[in-house]
């Protein structure tokens, strides 16, 4: 079972699900990326694009990989137009490095990752996001322009440098979530946000699902404006103890959580506001979270808490499934977690409570893991878009990690054929 290495990624079997690429290249420029793709296309060589290498296990198990194209050397912050609240960044730049640079002007790109080495290109390609998605959206919502290399060697752009722009097709959207199956991202332009003046988090822990869902309904029906409303259900750090001890990277999660983690489920409510207004929000949230054990966390502890919260599923063993649910059906999600808990070593839900999107970690034998995926996929009235992000190859071989794509499948295949006619990009692995 893979566990996290120091870089935040996975140190499972070597290569991609044990498939070792024949060659890895690190092109020094956008032109070199385009040239490498053109050459690979001529040879019909399968290409996997790599940013920080933190999500290399996402996707189907490939039959073979000829070439890994790393964006490592494309890591520049090309421009930070702070007065325009925009920035252009190369694909291989680490999110953390970009945000450190943007922070000099009190701004940031509100894209989070569970992984330290996550890059801009990887964030767009997976459209991966964190708890702050509640306020800021996913990478696709912040992207205003993109430059990509196509397999025929052309470098093209879409969108632009301005936040308001409806000229031409928004190909940046198309590339978002494409998992490296359509083109290689070389750079991207984003709209930025000012760093919040102040922030604080309320951890509200509940004894039962009903109390949690009632509090959630009260909070989302109020005019409180939270930056994040996350739900976490499953083992507290004590319960997960034996597994946490195997984790090589980062301090154990339980250093940052209070007594609330002895209860089975909790809401994590983050508020960002002006220093003077912040406490009003926290007080209001406390009042609305009736029946909860509440604890306010601020300062460095708050940063650590959210970091631990995002990393927790990835630091523990088991399959990780991403799925969406109708926001008012959180009760059904929590019921499923309870139901499965009886037959597994570890189960954990971590997600965006008000949006209805999250990760389910299931540590159990492969048969049970497959069964959980099938249960989620069978309840199409409540659960949608059930994607297996991390699993042993034994599990991955017995199900389609992407699940049924519906009508988007055929249409996506047509788009794939238009942009990558040889089918070399992320061949056999990606959603298209």
């Amino acid at each position, binding site marked *: 079972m893979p566990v996290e290495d120091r870089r935040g990624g996975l140190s499972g079997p070597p290569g991609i699900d044990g498939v070792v690429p024949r060659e890895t290249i690190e092109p020094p420029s956008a032109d070199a990326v385009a040239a490498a793709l053109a050459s690979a296309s001529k040879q019909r060589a399968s290409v996997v694009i790599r940013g920080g290498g933190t999500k290399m296990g996402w996707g189907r198990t490939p039959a073979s990989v000829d070439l890994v194209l790393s964006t490592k050397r494309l890591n520049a912050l090309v421009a930070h137009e702070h007065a325009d609240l925009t920035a252009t960044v190369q694909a291989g730049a680490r999110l953390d490095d970009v945000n450190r640079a943007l922070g000099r002007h009190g701004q940031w790109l509100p894209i989070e990752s569970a992984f330290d080495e996550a890059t801009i290109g990887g964030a767009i390609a997976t459209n991966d996001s964190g708890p702050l998605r509640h306020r800021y959206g996913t990478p696709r919502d912040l992207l205003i322009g993109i430059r990509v290399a196509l397999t025929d060697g052309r470098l093209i752009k879409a969108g632009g440098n301005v936040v*308001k722009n409806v000229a031409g097709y928004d190909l940046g959207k198309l590339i978002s979530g494409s998992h490296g199956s359509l083109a290689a991202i070389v750079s991207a332009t984003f709209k930025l946000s*000012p760093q919040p003046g102040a922030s604080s988090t309320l951890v509200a822990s509940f004894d039962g699902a009903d109390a949690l869902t009632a509090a959630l309904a009260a909070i989302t029906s109020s005019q409180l404006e939270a930056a994040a409303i996350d739900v976490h259900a499953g083992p507290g750090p004590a319960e997960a103890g034996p597994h946490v001890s195997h984790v090589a990277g980062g301090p154990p999660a339980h250093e940052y959580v209070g007594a609330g983690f002895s209860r089975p489920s909790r809401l994590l409510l983050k508020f960002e506001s002006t220093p003077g*207004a912040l406490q009003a929000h926290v007080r209001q949230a406390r009042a609305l979270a009736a029946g909860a054990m509440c604890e306010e966390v601020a300062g460095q502890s708050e940063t650590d808490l959210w970091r631990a919260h995002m990393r927790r599923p990835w630091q523990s063993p088991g399959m990780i499934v991403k799925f969406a649910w109708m*926001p008012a059906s959180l009760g059904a999600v929590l019921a499923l977690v309870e139901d499965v808990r009886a037959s597994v070593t570890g189960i954990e839900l971590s997600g965006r409570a008000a949006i209805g999107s999250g990760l389910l970690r299931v540590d159990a034998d492969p048969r049970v893991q497959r069964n959980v995926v099938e249960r989620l996929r069978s309840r199409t009235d409540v659960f949608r878009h059930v994607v297996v992000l991390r699993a042993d190859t034994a599990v991955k071989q017995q199900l389609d990690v992407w699940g049924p794509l519906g009508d988007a499948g055929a249409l996506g295949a047509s788009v794939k054929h238009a942009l990558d006619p040889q089918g070399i990009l992320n061949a056999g692995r990606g959603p298209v």
Partner: protein
Amino acid sequence: MTSPERGGGTSPERSRGIDASFVSELRRLCGDDAVVTEPLELLTYECDGLPHLRHTPPVVVLPSSAEGVQAAVRLCHRRDVPFVARGHGSGLSGGALPIPGGLVIGLARLNRVLDVDIPNRRVTVEPGVTNLEITRRVAPHGFYYAPDPSSQQVCSIGGNVAENSGGAHCLKYGFTVHHVLGVEAVLSNGDLVQLDSAIADAPGPDLLGVLIGSEGTLAIVTKVTVKILRKPEAVQTLLAAYDNIPAAGTAVSEIIAAGIIPAAVEIMDGVSLVAIEAAVHPHFPPAEAILIVELDGPVAEVREQFAEVEKICHRAGATTVEVAQSEEHRARIWKGRKGAFASMGRVTPNYYVQDGVVPRTKLPEVLDRIRQLEARCGLRIGNVFHAGDGNLHPLICYDEKIPGQSDLAAQVGGEILQYCIDAGGSLTGEHGIGADKAEYMPKMFTDDDLDVMLAVRRAFDPKGLCNPGKVFPTPRLCGEVPGPYHAHPIEKAGLGERF
């Protein structure tokens, strides 16, 4: 009824497609009452909100269901007949301009609100439902639909999806693409597909993300699910008067630099203010520039940030700062802004409105170039703009009775677009490319850029039947340039304004 060459881009073979047998087949499939062939009735469909581009369609179909749309599209696909979907015809770039030899598929009868799901914060509607209707349906529950183009009383959600409409509040709340969770759509071969967006966590390329804003060139949406937002606890609006535009611009820059993202930031210049005062009497203080700033959010936060905004406005040299003290006061301030375009009739016989975008910091430079252009060309140019996102709406005043002036106005509009591109901006912030600006696309995109967009288009619509001649440049058949402005019937009736 003129200039059929423009905006078409279809071959003569295709034009043969609509004949008596096509029309009778359409009647059989969609019903007699859904097929319009009366010449007088057809005039309604000859243009959208860009009336100088017009073409009378040979036939219009008004289906009442997605199946009806499918049947019409399948027939077109079989006969190689191009088609264009039309919502309520309020578009400003000729996106719904009929295609020569093509069918117009009007979606006005697909106007049902299908599901109002407050617990799940979403509403599902047919494309002919107006933008404002969604907010009307959910307002009693304390919710609203965020994108608010100023035509929101009349414009359709289907049109909003096609154009990726924004509104005065998109600086903070984003565009249609940030609020659509899923659609049902008819592809050019008549297939009905369900597409969820990345907002709804659909895995894989965000196909719906590219469909939104594709100006009807990829598919026809027959059902749209949007998310709704809780109404903000507080809204505060102020108006600041300045002796010059750069001072107002400085205030905007400082607000942004202070880490405040207003819900709306608008500037009107002296030329437009004279017209506004004459037309809608908002009793603005005398000024060369009026800045409107609106903040919304939780009470405590708005109070604190608003005090900061007031300070910044004074510091930038405001001669007056007027804070809205009541909902009526706020409405009066917005009436002045929203009435800006319609007011131009008070100071000029005709005007041409342009829609370009520049990075916010380039506003002073571009406005300066526009002033120089104004002096050079002899036409007055008013400026009304969404200052927060650098979206300019220059209003070029002219008199069509003076020979050459309408052409000159159009040339001036084109020149201003060039300034926007030179400054690193865009050809359009919200009105779309449509038929109006297709020829300008090469100023912003390379042949390769456009070629790849066209490849995506072919993946959706291999035969190129879905609204051909829009967005992408076609070889120009006549010497037309995007033309001057004429009031749309919707504006004349006072139902909506350009914004």
